[in-house]
């Protein structure tokens, strides 16, 4: 039973990690706390859901469309909410406020669109296949989710550390001014960063929508609040930190819900965040990676 | 009457020494110069004296008091004032308010009295504004008292910084490139003010890139290059020192 819950925790936690990765990427490169990241996740889930219900697309295509939808919304968000502020050289306070405004708009539009309903992916979106492994029941969906997360993380690391685009992104993260002198076009970099970040959130949205069998306009808020905990625990801007902390939070939450109570799970998660900020604001793994250094200007 | 003494101070960033073993004395009542080419470590020295940076080695003394471990607010309260190389004023606030801010270390009325707007707090505010107005008059800026500081010319903004530092009634005054970007007339009128401030017994350390200006103002000059002192002495001796000439031309 414990092992079973642990497995569930790992699956949910890896999706948390995926979501937090996009959030931490924007923070690392643009120094923006994107409070609208949760609504991008929700719009990604919507995109995947509508693709399935309207056009009857299979699971892989739904995930892909979720990624595209999330990426698109994220890029639009950058153009409308952050670019004008970047041009003014506004302080980080402004971008937080602006993204809160944007998230209200995105949230409200989704509410109108769905008339506040809770929607579900069709029952047959993913075949129910389970394996028994030393008494542990592992579903095929769980394996596929873990595989997708691993694939995305490896892909992201490859992109950031092995391609010239990735080098440019990292250069902008270290110093936007210097990278301009090196002839790097910040507009192109921001487009990539916001698209990737939104796509990761969109994929996470479709996966969570299928796992919990529910898609609704408020689904992003608890995830965003959890992402705060994940990224603080992992060290803002750190990619491995976000993953490990995501798994940790997923496991803690699943175990608390299973053995104690759902209400307590929230209190526990946020008390963790508060304590980590007091004791070790750079996070448990802060400073572990090159991207993490960016956070301490 | 207190002198500023640096005793073999050093600071490195990530293992690279930015300032390595600087010792100097800025006596009370004098203007002491610290010059050096760009990147010599001048601003690092200022930041160490004002407590914004910790030293990795050495001691800093104000009079007899060892202030090596003091943080920035403590140093300010001990009487160390400074101006900034890149002017740092509150742009939206009026000239008068910017100068009044300099009196912070002399404010005596307690937090609660300020919060409740008690007569003592109102009286103190009026007194500080009068003192600030007197400073404005001395600097010939009375007519601009109500203007937002950010809307004024470069030369005026430098003066405001100067007034704010003087409002602290400092024992030690650090001037970080105070005449950068000024024309000769403006620089000269400031030089007169510096002299009169020194005459009141303040120890002034003038950090400058502009060699000519320092030569005309200081009795004693230290030369910094690549984080180390390479020469010291009166303006003539320093000006003819081959090491100094090399450091400036070679840089």
């Amino acid at each position, binding site marked *: 039973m414990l092992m079973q819950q642990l497995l569930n925790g790992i699956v949910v936690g890896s999706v948390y990690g995926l979501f937090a990765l996009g959030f931490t990427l924007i923070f690392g490169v643009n120094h923006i*706390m994107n409070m609208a990241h949760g609504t991008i996740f929700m719009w990604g889930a919507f995109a995947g859901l509508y693709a399935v219900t309207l056009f009857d697309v299979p699971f892989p295509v739904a995930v892909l469309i979720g990624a595209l939808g999330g990426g698109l919304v994220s890029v639009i968000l950058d153009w409308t*909410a952050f670019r*004008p502020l970047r041009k003014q050289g*506004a302080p*980080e*306070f*402004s971008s*937080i*406020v*602006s993204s*809160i*405004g*944007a*998230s*209200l*708009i995105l*949230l*409200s*539009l989704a509410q109108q669109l769905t008339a506040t309903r809770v929607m579900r992916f069709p029952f047959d979106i993913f075949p129910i296949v389970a394996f028994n492994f030393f008494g542990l029941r592992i579903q095929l969906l769980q394996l596929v989710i873990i595989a997708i997360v691993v694939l995305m993380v490896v892909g992201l690391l490859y992109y950031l550390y092995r391609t010239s685009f990735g080098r440019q992104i990292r250069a902008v993260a270290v110093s936007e001014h210097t990278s301009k002198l090196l002839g790097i076009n910040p507009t192109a970099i921001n487009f990539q960063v916001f698209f990737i970040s939104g796509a990761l959130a969109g994929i996470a949205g479709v996966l969570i929508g299928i796992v919990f069998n529910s898609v609704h306009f408020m689904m992003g*808020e608890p995830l965003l609040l959890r992402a*705060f905990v994940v990224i603080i625990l992992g060290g*803002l801007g750190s990619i491995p930190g976000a993953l490990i902390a995501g798994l940790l939070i997923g496991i803690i939450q699943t175990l608390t819900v299973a053995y104690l109570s759902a*209400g*307590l799970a*929230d*209190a526990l998660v946020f008390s963790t*965040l*508060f304590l980590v*900020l*007091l004791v070790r*604001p750079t996070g448990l793994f802060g400073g572990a990676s090159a991207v993490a250094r960016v956070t301490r200007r | 009457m207190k002198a500023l003494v640096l005793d073999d101070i050093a600071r490195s960033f990530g293992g690279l020494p930015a300032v390595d073993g600087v010792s100097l004395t800025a006596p009370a009542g004098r203007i002491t110069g610290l010059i050096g080419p760009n990147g010599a470590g001048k601003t690092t020295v200022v930041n160490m004296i*004002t*407590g914004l940076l910790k030293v990795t080695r050495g001691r800093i003394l104000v009079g007899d008091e060892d202030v090596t471990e003091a*943080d920035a*607010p403590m140093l*300010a309260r001990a009487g160390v004032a400074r101006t900034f190389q890149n002017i*740092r*004023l*509150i*742009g939206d*606030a009026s000239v008068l308010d910017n100068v*009044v*801010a*300099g009196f*912070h270390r002399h*404010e005596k*009325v307690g*937090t609660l009295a*300020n*919060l*409740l*707007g008690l007569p003592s*707090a109102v009286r*103190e*505010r009026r007194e500080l504004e009068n003192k600030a107005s007197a400073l404005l008059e001395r600097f010939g800026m009375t*007519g601009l008292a*109500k203007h*937002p500081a950010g*809307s004024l010319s470069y030369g005026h903004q430098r003066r405001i910084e100067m007034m704010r530092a003087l409002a*602290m009634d400092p024992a030690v005054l650090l001037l970080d490139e105070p005449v950068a970007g000024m024309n000769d007339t403006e620089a000269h009128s400031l030089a007169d003010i510096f002299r009169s401030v020194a005459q009141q017994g303040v120890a002034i350390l003038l950090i400058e890139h502009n060699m000519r200006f320092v030569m005309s103002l200081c009795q004693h000059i230290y030369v910094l290059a690549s984080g180390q002192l390479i020469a010291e002495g009166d303006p003539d001796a320093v000006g003819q020192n081959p090491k100094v000439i090399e450091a400036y031309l070679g840089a």
Partner: protein
Amino acid sequence: MMSFFNSYTPLLELALFNALLAFSQYVVLRAGVFSLGTAAFAALGAYAAAIMVTKLGMPAWLGLIAAVGLGTVAGALVAVPLARLRGVFQALATLALVQIVLSITLNWVDVTEGALGINSIPKTIGLFGMFCAVAVVTYLMSAMGSTSIGRAFDIIREDETVAVSLGISVPKHHMIAFILSGAIAGLAGGLHAYTSYSITPNEYGFNMLVMVLAMVVLGGRVSVWGPIVGAVVLTALPELLRGLQEYRTVVQGALLMLSIIFLPRGVADTLIGTLRRRRITLASTKAKAVTI
């Protein structure tokens, strides 16, 4: 006239309540502290006040003292560790605080009645009482603003390096800001409990946090008029947009975005700045005319 007041009393009470919350948010933002803790402090105040009266049978004035006291203590406790954190981290920590308080009020059912909230609280505070509270807080804020504390707040917010080199202690002033923010929000929460008959945990959640932030961003963070203007506009807005009920949140979000992008200093501070500049140019042209 009387009937006008009667039909609008709830709305006016709400505007005054919002103004108090806005002052709680304003005082931290003015000091350069990015706290989002106002909703948490207000919840503590509201529950303290409600529990004092309904469960402990205490008089309302003692309940209000408890509300302000609890808010003050919470603000002071939070201030100590948070003073050394950078802005973003202060925002996250206080956001967590709001969630923690929300979890407690939802789950500590024995004391807080859980999600149902505390009902049938006697209404002991009216419009006049709310108005007095706002007047007192406005006076304190303007007294603070024009003396040493307000000046120190402004310098810390604009440039911390300058502040420390003038001898201003940043932790001390952040502490003052947090304490004031906690006390004012505690008072607001207590008064709300005594005007609205009932309180529920979800009133003091993320929605309140966003709304309060919006009021100060829209109004302005320096002049005391800022939070008042913000509270009035954002209280009146839903009434004005009654026909567009569904789009209320969209309008609120757009307002937040537009004001931070195009009016980053807020309505009141921008207006005051413009007026001041106009007066100065007017005065200097007059002076020139005289000398000619």
